[in-house]
């Protein structure tokens, strides 16, 4: 019995929900508790003591049973954290619903603005908004982003350009630090600049905080503009590897607070420290990576916790490196890079998808939270605004970055085979974004050692804002203007894989003919070592001997099969693929394949048609993926073979009967090695 009024109301609600503005309504509904939550924390506390007081005094008098009881304090912390995460995610969603906005302004800028607004609202509400706590940042927010970056790092371009990346990361950062620090100190000496009170150490520690390119900001901006792989890997690799330099310099200058002179021994120790920090971090990461790979070898019976091992081992790598003040970022990257090829060979497809999605999800949430908190922390302060210092530091940052890139490229191009062009250099200089790491490091400075900490913080925030806003917004039109090569979107095809392998072997061969130890020679030797010893230990027995080409082929088949099932089978109109029969040139047909007689051909046609009717009945009604078979079942390979058998049947019929069967648009998957064992062998088209 449908009531007309009710249906109209429901229709109205449904219409509202479909409307976009209902989303914003939802957002504001959640925003208010956040603001209220901050302020009510105080009130609730009073309420609590009040009731405690009265209950102690009046434990004889009977009070009515409380039906509804407010105890916010109990859930305060998790509640607020969840609310923040929810707000961050809704904001992110909101930007994508707003048409056109996300294509002009990078997300990071919008999130900072949101943070500013929220911080402002909380302050207006009369309470102190939460600061970006450095501990929270370094231990909880940063690792997911770095792990995501490290796990999915494109290895080939990274290792090919490792020399360039290291040059930029180490030498480039050192240049930045000493240039900015030195210039600041020099300018501070001039009375006219009103910067008095800055000693050399303070300048140097400020510049060491502010020189490092930030991976979070680079990822956030560069991910959206999709430039070519080389530039992306150069900027991004630099931002990851300069962490070691930053860590060493920061701790070095912090240690030397109060000391007036720096001896040569100290400098020497600093260099040793740098080597220990970076190589130690890599070693710790590699160890954990190998452990994770080894563990994944035995998880065949308990697939559900495979992703957990990946995450926990990586996090432990990060924390272990942090224990010894080694570079946690490099440890995490090393762990992800080492672990990945072996773990991926061992784990099931489901686990692989889980790991991918969880990493992407966590890193996305982390990034959003970081930018929002950056905005909120700006509102909180404390600020000490010094116009000269701020402008000088911004200008110096820019100048040192540009000079550094130009100088280093000049040197590097002497050793590179594929030189970096002027456009490349421009993008590299432009990609020197600073971010939340600089802010957190600045926040960690001790006030008593550095009385001008607030001035530093203000300046760091201005630099971050400048790089993220100005450079982030302008980089997109500039990339279009300069016609920088963009990323190829297509996945690697089987042909490209074959020829890449051919090329690798060819170049290694030519290297050996030439007689000199080249880049290809070492790569080749590493591959052989990997295949012979490492893979045996770390990969499950039957898969360790599988050659890379075969593994690639199997993965590609799996992917295509899943795609086919997701599109519901035959709905995609692909060009009709010629059967493999047509690939055989006439010459090869005569070599070993016997001719089939007319009667045999007719018999074959009859049988195939009959079977097709049977398989047709099995497959066509079951278009929806759930009923055909779950691609994420671990016994998917068997189901795949069943389908391929049916496909071969269809294809053979298309060839044999010409117009009898409409040309089926089958996905571009090739033949199946197996045969129908119960049917007579069909020599011309059957593969054994």
């Amino acid at each position, binding site marked *: 019995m449908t009531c007309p009024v009710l249906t109209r109301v429901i229709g109205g609600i449904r219409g509202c929900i479909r409307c976009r503005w209902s989303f914003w309504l939802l957002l504001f509904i959640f925003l208010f508790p956040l603001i209220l939550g901050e302020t009510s924390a105080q009130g609730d506390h009073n309420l609590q003591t009040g009731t405690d007081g009265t209950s102690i005094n009046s434990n004889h008098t009977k009070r009515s049973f409380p039906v509804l009881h407010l105890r916010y304090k109990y859930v305060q912390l998790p509640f607020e954290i969840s609310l923040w995460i929810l707000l961050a995610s809704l904001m992110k969603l909101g930007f994508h619903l707003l048409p056109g906005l996300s294509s002009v302004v990078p997300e990071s800028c919008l999130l900072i603005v949101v943070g500013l607004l929220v911080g402002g609202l909380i302050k207006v509400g009369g309470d102190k908004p939460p600061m970006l706590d450095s501990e929270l940042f370094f231990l909880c927010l940063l690792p997911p982003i770095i792990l995501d970056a490290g796990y999915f790092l494109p290895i080939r371009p990274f290792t090919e350009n490792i020399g360039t990346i290291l040059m930029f990361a180490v030498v480039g950062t050192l240049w930045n630090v000493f240039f900015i620090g030195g210039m600041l100190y020099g300018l501070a000496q001039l009375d006219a600049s009103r910067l008095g009170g800055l000693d050399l150490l303070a300048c140097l520690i400020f510049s060491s905080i502010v020189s490092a390119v930030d991976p979070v900001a680079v990822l956030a901006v560069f991910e959206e503009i999709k430039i070519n792989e080389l530039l992306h890997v150069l900027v991004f690799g630099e931002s990851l590897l300069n962490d070691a330099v930053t860590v060493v310099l920061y701790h070095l200058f912090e240690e030397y607070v109060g000391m007036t002179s720096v001896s040569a021994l100290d400098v020497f120790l600093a260099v040793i420290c740098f080597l220990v920090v970076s190589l130690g971090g890599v070693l710790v990461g590699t160890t954990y990576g190998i452990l994770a790979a080894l563990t994944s070898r035995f998880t065949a019976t308990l697939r559900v916790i495979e992703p957990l091992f990946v995450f926990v081992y990586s996090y432990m790598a990060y924390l272990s490196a942090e224990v010894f003040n080694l570079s946690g970022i490099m440890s995490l990257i090393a762990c992800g890079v080492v672990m990945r090829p072996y773990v991926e060979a061992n784990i099931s497809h489901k686990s692989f998808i889980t790991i991918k999605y969880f990493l992407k999800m966590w890193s996305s949430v982390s990034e959003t939270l970081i930018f929002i908190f950056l905005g909120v922390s700006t509102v909180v302060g404390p600020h000490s605004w010094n116009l000269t210092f701020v402008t000088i530091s911004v200008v110096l940052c820019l100048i040192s970055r540009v000079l550094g890139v130009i100088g280093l490229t000049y040197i590097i191009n002497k050793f590179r085979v*594929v030189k970096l062009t002027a456009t490349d250099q421009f993008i590299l200089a432009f990609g020197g974004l600073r971010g939340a790491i600089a802010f957190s490091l600045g926040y960690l400075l001790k006030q008593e050692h550095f009385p001008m900490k607030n001035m530093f913080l203000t300046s760091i925030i201005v630099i971050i804002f400048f790089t993220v806003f100005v450079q982030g917004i302008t980089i997109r039109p500039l990339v279009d203007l300069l016609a920088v090569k963009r990323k190829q979107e297509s996945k690697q095809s089987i042909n490209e894989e074959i020829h890449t392998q051919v090329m690798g072997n*060819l170049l290694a061969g030519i290297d050996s003919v030439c007689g000199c130890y080249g880049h290809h020679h070492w790569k080749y030797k590493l591959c052989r070592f990997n295949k012979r010893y490492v893979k045996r230990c770390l990969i499950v027995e039957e898969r360790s001997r599988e050659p890379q080409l075969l593994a690639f082929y199997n993965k590609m088949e799996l992917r295509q099969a899943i795609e086919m099932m997701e599109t519901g089978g035959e709905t995609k109109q692909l060009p009709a693929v010629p059967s493999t029969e047509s690939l055989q040139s006439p010459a090869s047909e005569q070599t070993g394949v016997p001719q089939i007689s007319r009667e045999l051909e007719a018999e074959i046609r009859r049988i195939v048609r009959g079977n097709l009717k049977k398989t047709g009945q099995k497959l066509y009604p079951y278009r929806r993926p759930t009923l055909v078979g779950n691609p994420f079942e671990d016994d998917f390979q068997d189901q795949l073979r069943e389908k391929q058998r049916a496909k071969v049947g269809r294809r053979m019929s298309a060839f044999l009967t010409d117009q009898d069967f409409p040309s089926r648009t089958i996905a571009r998957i090739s033949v199946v090695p197996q045969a129908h064992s119960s049917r007579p062998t069909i020599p011309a088209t059957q593969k054994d």
Partner: protein
Amino acid sequence: MGAFQSAPGEHEFQDLADKTGFSLEQIGNLQNRFKQLSHNEDTLRREDFNTIPDLACNPIRAQIVEAFFDKRNYRQGDAGTVREIGFEEFVTVMSHFRPPELNMTDERREAFRREKLRFLFNMHDTDNDGTITLEEYRHVVEELLSRCGTMEKEAKAISDSAMLEVASINMGHMEPDEFYAGITFEHFLQILKDLEIESTMHVRFANAAPMTCRK
């Protein structure tokens, strides 16, 4: 020794340098290597390549060695194979692996690319009929997988799949009774257009005399 000039003049090298694009030092180094491989004779034979230990474990060893003796790679428009090669042919084949120059015009870059791809194509097209047939492609894949035992079935499957892909990219819609005879050079260019051959297919030729040169 023998008929080969033991100290060819600068003029000889200059000619070679202009033709192939190497610098004089690089040609000098290559000559040393040539002498080493050929045991100081003037020509290299196929057996001389067997003395290189690192080449022995390369899966496509046979094809690499054949490429040196293939007349199509000498840039003279001939075809066929020879039994022994001189220094000039050695350098000409090596010149296919030069790195790209810094400021190349677009058409020069394209010609450079075609040259390298032509070398790759010649390596696969062993019977010199202008197309890579299914059999030849199968042979390539088998060689790549040869290190891991005989994998005939899988090699067939992979090469068939690859061939189908080439056919579908280049030929689009085909009638069921049409043949796809083989990959022509143009189709080959088409399927490898994303690999950026001109910047990846090169070997670093030392300018100075290499300190650690292996036998």
